[in-house]
């Protein structure tokens, strides 16, 4: 990695202020990681406070020919926010204000550094909320969500980030500031907002986000269904959907997960169960009331040995706690974990889950499954101790096999965590070269060049470095959940 020039650092200071620029090696180490086990050391870190700062920084990066990597909270699980090629890393966390709140039209305009949950908190007193709820929502930013097209448990009924973003302000690679979309007005034209969502910071830097807010549902009830076999639980997932019910959330936790969380969190999951389902129904009071008998019957028909439900917020929170804090709890089993993200048609879940266990068995790895079952979005979490020689290679090999399994079942290599550097070489499993070249033409349309978050999201070209790995540390707090 080339050393950045002193001039560049001086210019960055002039743009954003002395306190916004970090370049001493010990400071940079803090930015070497995101939520993955990969690494990448930036040459310099700069925190912009305004769109104008961003524009000037982007122009400077281009002028000096160095990579520019936008970053949110660094919770990403595909390595998207890593400076794998060095260059300027630009965390957006200081741009975190709520700029506009239009209660009549239920629209908010926020800066990209706003933490996801903070937005819902800010609008809660108006009985509104922001729907996409990635499990990292206490830490991750709206900008990072836009870049990854983040999902979450409640995206089953409400849709992912792309369905809730109404417009963006962008800074293009040449520093130009552009607004896309109608910001609440469905005005037509090419849907540039739609393609920038999910583009992982490779097309432009997002500096403002106009989002739709939803009215909080009138009633909510959470069901816990306990199963003695994984097959029964996955069949129940299919049966709920087959019964014409779209729950707010439909999540599954397997035995390893239950055994990790229950002793610590006392969420009420039986320790001898093979799987539990969490099903949340929300909406009109009538709908929720009627669902008690209906959902209960469907879950039992599939062999649930127990179905419980709660509408009291504290009790609901307890039922959810094992789901929400699973990843923190895994720390008690093994020091490290590696979270995968694949999607399959929900009907294929039984065989695919069986395959996931078989692959991990073969590699002698422990795996816990806790995931968005309703939309077939798997998150196998491989548990390991990186001090065991050769284990990281086995973990990665198992991960690749599991991704292949998802693809072969008619699914995809990422439902919500993005491609980043982790999966860029699997892209050819689902897309042809023609597909990818067609996608990459967008870089030209946005004038992004290769400096904007280089070597991410697509198979690498010459000039991209090797992935640096480990030491994998469980950096996530006990509150984190996927």
């Amino acid at each position, binding site marked *: 990695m080339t050393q950045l020039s002193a001039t560049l650092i001086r210019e960055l200071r002039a743009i954003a202020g002395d306190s916004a620029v970090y370049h001493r090696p010990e400071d940079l180490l803090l930015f070497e990681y995101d939520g993955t086990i990969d690494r990448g050391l930036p040459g310099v870190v700069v925190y912009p406070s305004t769109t104008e700062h961003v524009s000037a920084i982007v122009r400077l990066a281009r002028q000096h020919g160095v990579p520019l990597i936008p970053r949110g909270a660094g919770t990403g699980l595909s390595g998207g926010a890593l400076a794998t090629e060095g260059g300027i890393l630009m965390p957006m966390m200081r741009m975190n204000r709520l700029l506009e709140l*239009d209660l*009549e*039209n239920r629209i908010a305009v926020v800066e990209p550094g706003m933490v996801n949950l903070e937005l819902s908190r800010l609008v809660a007193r108006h009985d509104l909320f922001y729907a996409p709820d990635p499990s990292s929502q206490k830490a991750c930013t709206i900008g990072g969500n836009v870049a*990854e097209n983040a*999902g979450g448990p409640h*995206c089953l009924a409400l849709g*992912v980030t*792309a*369905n809730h973003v109404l417009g963006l302000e962008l800074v293009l690679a040449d520093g*130009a*500031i552009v*607004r896309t*979309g109608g910001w609440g*007005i*469905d*005005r*037509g*034209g*090419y*849907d*540039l907002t*739609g*393609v920038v*969502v999910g*583009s992982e910071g490779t*097309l432009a830097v997002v500096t403002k986000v106009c989002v739709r807010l939803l*009215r909080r*549902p*009138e009633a909510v009830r959470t069901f816990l269904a306990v199963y003695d076999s994984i097959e029964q639980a996955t069949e129940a997932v299919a049966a709920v959907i087959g019964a*014409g019910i*779209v729950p707010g959330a439909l999540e599954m936790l397997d035995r390893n997960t239950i055994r990790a969380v229950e002793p610590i969190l006392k969420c009420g999951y039986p320790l001898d169960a093979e799987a539990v389902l969490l099903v949340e129904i929300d909406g*009109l009071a009538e*709908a929720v*009331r*009627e669902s008690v008998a209906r959902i209960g019957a469907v879950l039992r028909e599939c062999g649930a040995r127990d179905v419980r439900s709660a509408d009291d917020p504290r009790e609901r929170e307890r039922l959810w706690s094992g789901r929400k804090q699973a990843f923190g709890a895994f720390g008690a089993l093994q020091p490290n974990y590696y979270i995968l993200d694949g*999607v*399959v*048609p*929900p*009907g294929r879940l039984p065989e695919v889950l069986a395959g996931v266990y078989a692959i991990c068995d073969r590699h002698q790895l422990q795996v816990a499954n806790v995931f*968005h079952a309703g*939309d077939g979005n798997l998150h196998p979490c491989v548990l390991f101790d990186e001090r065991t020689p050769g284990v990281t290679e086995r973990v990665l090999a198992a991960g690749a096999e599991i991704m292949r399994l998802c693809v072969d079942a008619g*699914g*995809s*290599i*990422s439902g919500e*965590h993005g*491609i980043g550097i982790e999966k860029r070489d699997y892209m050819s499993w*689902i*897309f042809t070269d*023609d*597909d990818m*070249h*067609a*996608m990459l*033409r*967008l870089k*030209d349309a*946005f004038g992004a060049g290769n400096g904007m978050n280089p070597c991410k999201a*697509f198979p690498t070209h010459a000039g991209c470095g090797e992935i640096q790995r480990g030491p994998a540390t469980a950096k996530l707090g006990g509150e984190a959940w996927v």
Partner: protein
Amino acid sequence: MMTTADALAALAAHPELDLLSQAHVAGYIVDGIAPIAVVRPRSEAGVIAAVRQAAAAGVPVLPWGGGTSVNGGNRLASPCLVIDLAALDQVIEYQPRDRTITAGAGLRLAALAKLVEAEGQLLPLEPPLPERATIGGALASGLSGPRRHRYGSARDLLIGSTAVLADGTCVHSGGRVAKNVAGYDLNKLWVGSAGTLAVITQASFRLWPAPPVTELALLAFPTAKAAHRAAMEIAGSPLQPLSLDLAGPATLAATAVPPADVWWLCIENGGTPAMVERLRGELRAVASRCGAERTVAVRGQEAAGVRGMLRDFGYPAAPDALLLRVVTLPSRLAEAVLATAALQDAPLPALVARAGAGMLLARWSDIEPAAARRVIVRVRAAVAALGGSVAIAHAAAAVKDGLDTWGINGGDVAIMQQVKQVYDPAGLLSPGRAPGEHEH
């Protein structure tokens, strides 16, 4: 370089294509321009072959679905080779348990609806004239229909697609699963691109369970303002109706529901019987708070008739009709109605609005070109003052001449032009129709 005649000869000989005879060509006149020829590919390979031949000869291409809205958009710049996708009407994969379906672009929406209805499911994509409109046409024109209020618009339902670019490259994006973030989401680009970026050949959608009971509530208001106030109240409540449409005076006259000279707020409720009953009660309360003169609940055939009118409004478009699509923030819809309907010395339009989306459709059924152009200029000026914009959804070719029908401006139009440039550098797909191709 290959000539047009060479290209047509190659197309006539291609096993995956049917070249229609001259007798059929009359059905494909757009903006007064007859096609160079019409081909009907039998497969994706046929589409690719047709686009490649056209590209080699420098012949422009016009993708054709059901022909229901192909007269919309900027005036076509030159005669084209029409690629009629009607034969790509196969259901490629339908797994009710996965709530997804993949079908060829030429499949009619009514046929698709019937198929999924049999499994208790619903594709809430409801462009006008579903008996004729195809999946590909609905996506390209970006027309979503009344139920977008509850389920979102075409962009929210499309999860994967195959499309052919102007150079014949076949491009897949998304997939067949509801959640998928791999690759740039080109699906979003194709939706609403009006055939200017790619020829859509196949699409995958997420489906919804059909509500067990539906019912249409009609609330009659003396003024647009009162009806709009009720609409805003409903949209902001926890009630989640399937649709929330406003119909101007006389617009629903053809249906059996009297009286005619009022503003009807038409709300489709769906769910279990208990939910529908609750909604009916809530709507009655809204109606009385907002000064409704009358409330009726209709079901079955009668409801289907009203729903059909709201969905099809403006279509099929008469040659001399003008149909404007006015969009504003939902809160400004009543002002948009005033800006559109209260023009001096212009005939009154018929109006339907998707109130939840802030979208107003205004139709003048028979209007002189000069008067139409005056209307467009005035409505655009008035709506711009509200922060909205006005697209010309349909107008006679003479009206559209030299006019930009998209009605959008802003810094992003330059990026749209770049997008057009990278996907269709020679400007062969639906020539003249891309955003920014005409002065606004």
